[in-house]
């Protein structure tokens, strides 16, 4: 394994690449992300205004509403979803949105779970890719 490779656990298999958007605080997609634009709209969230669209979204876990799976699915339909979702803790509700997207639209962001030390090492803005085996590669 190269230095820039991290092995994650696959929650929903997929591949995707993009710049890392790193959230230190958990985010509820429902009430937190506008699926029409992919922007974070939760005014209490420190990254309010940032876009998750096409990014490798690194966040600890989701929180709050059980409708977050709906918002992720809608973002997949519209084309504003993240390229991949990289979690530190198991989040059934975001994985669910991705699993249903795969069933319905035959595409979804990969969802992977990283060990906490590896999760902490992923830098904001780095170019990253995730493959179907759950391997996260970081350029540079």
């Amino acid at each position, binding site marked *: 394994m190269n230095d820039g490779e991290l*092995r*994650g*656990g*696959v*929650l*929903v*298999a997929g591949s995707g690449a993009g710049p890392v958007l790193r959230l230190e605080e958990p985010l509820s997609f*429902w*009430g*937190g992300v506008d*699926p029409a634009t992919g922007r974070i*709209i*939760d*005014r*209490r969230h420190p990254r309010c205004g940032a876009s998750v669209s096409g990014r490798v979204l690194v966040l600890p*876990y*989701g*929180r*709050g*509403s*059980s*409708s*977050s*799976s*709906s*918002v992720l*699915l*809608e973002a*997949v*339909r*519209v084309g504003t979803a993240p390229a991949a979702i990289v979690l530190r803790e*198991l989040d*059934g*509700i975001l*994985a*669910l*949105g991705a*699993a*249903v*997207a795969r*069933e*319905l*639209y035959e595409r979804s962001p990969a969802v992977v779970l990283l060990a906490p030390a590896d999760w902490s090492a992923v830098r904001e803005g780095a170019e990253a890719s995730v493959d*179907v*085996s*759950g391997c996260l590669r970081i350029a540079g």
Partner: protein
Amino acid sequence: MAAPDPFETVELTDLDRAMLSGDHGEAAAVAMRILVAMAGVYGADRLLDIEGAHIDGCLYHGDSGVDFAELLVAGGARVRVPTTLNVGGLDLLHPEEFAGTAERRVKALRLMECYEAMGCRTIWTCAPYQTTPRPAFGQQIAWAESNAIVFANSVLGARTHRYGDFIDICAAITGRAPAVGFHLAENRRGQVVFDLRSLPHALRAAPWLLPAIGYLVGERCANRVPVLLGLEDADEDGLKALGAAAASAGAVALFHAVGSTPEAPTLEAALGGRDAEEWIEVAAADLRAGLRRLSTVRDAAAPDGVAGSLRIDVVALGSPHFSPREFAELLPIIERHPPAESVEFVVCTNRVSLAHLERGGDLERLRGHGVRVVVDTCVVVAPILRTPSGGVLMTNSGKFAHYAPGNVGFDVVFGSLSECVQSAHAGRLRRDPALWP
């Protein structure tokens, strides 16, 4: 590492396999594929039987939800267990209450009709536990809607994991759910104790105490199971408000209130015979800080005597949906202090409470005072409010206080029921100093 394939590792019955292979129709196959995939995500080794479901996926968030429901309907979906529906995007009894576009109305209605076509009961409420026969103690169910989940687990002692949109209907169609989380006794013991017993008596009797405690608990305990000490006298509507706030601020799906909830006759029972992982003495200052975070207007939590200068544009009550008891508390206060014409006053409830109100003539009395009573939906999930966003909304609901700023673009002031009514009467924020620490 590549995940082990759940279709290999999850133990499936003959009926599960028959559903997977399409013997029970294409919809059952889709539902079972999603369930098995999610069993893999959760690390479950098997599925278990459920006896009821509550569906959150009937609320319109965009065309994808309709696409999914139509896929199921086209595949011949029928629910196998008694299944109730959460709020939809429209008040079907009062269509004039809808303030959105014609296109959105059509799609929200289409989604509601799809779930009805699958055989779900059309109660359209986030408080199903106050309308239809309740799940029994220990019964396995699959519920979505965060406040309903926490009520079913905590107050009824039924067993559901914290489910989201889509897996809820998959469980209802198959009668199965992953054997994980709060379905299993070993995951239901309390972990974090919140000790309220040293709070001053006046505070413990404050009408806003339970949602405020719920918000604090949600923030402090994330997804662990809290145990509350000192709530022996809490009534059902109070526990409902507490749970809804805790499930908004955190990912709380189960709490124990010693002396009030069925799995907590004693502290030892609530903790499952183990030591608490953390013990938090709740002080008046913690409550005050929690109250400040519930409001988004800076000085709104500071009581400033009888009449404040802050203008109130909307008062919204009923998240979770108002019960007949809550209406009985509201009515005499409204009659003494009817809302000013400048204030939009909305109460969200369900058809059971509405029928109750109609029978006694109370609905006409409320409407006569300018109160709008909305059923089947709610003001933070559907375009109901007529006041343009950007104003100030006051509520006694921790859940409305949490979601109104992001979802409908209002600043929020949290207060007691009586303060909400008196503020609506004055058109300006009114605090009862006797209620505040």
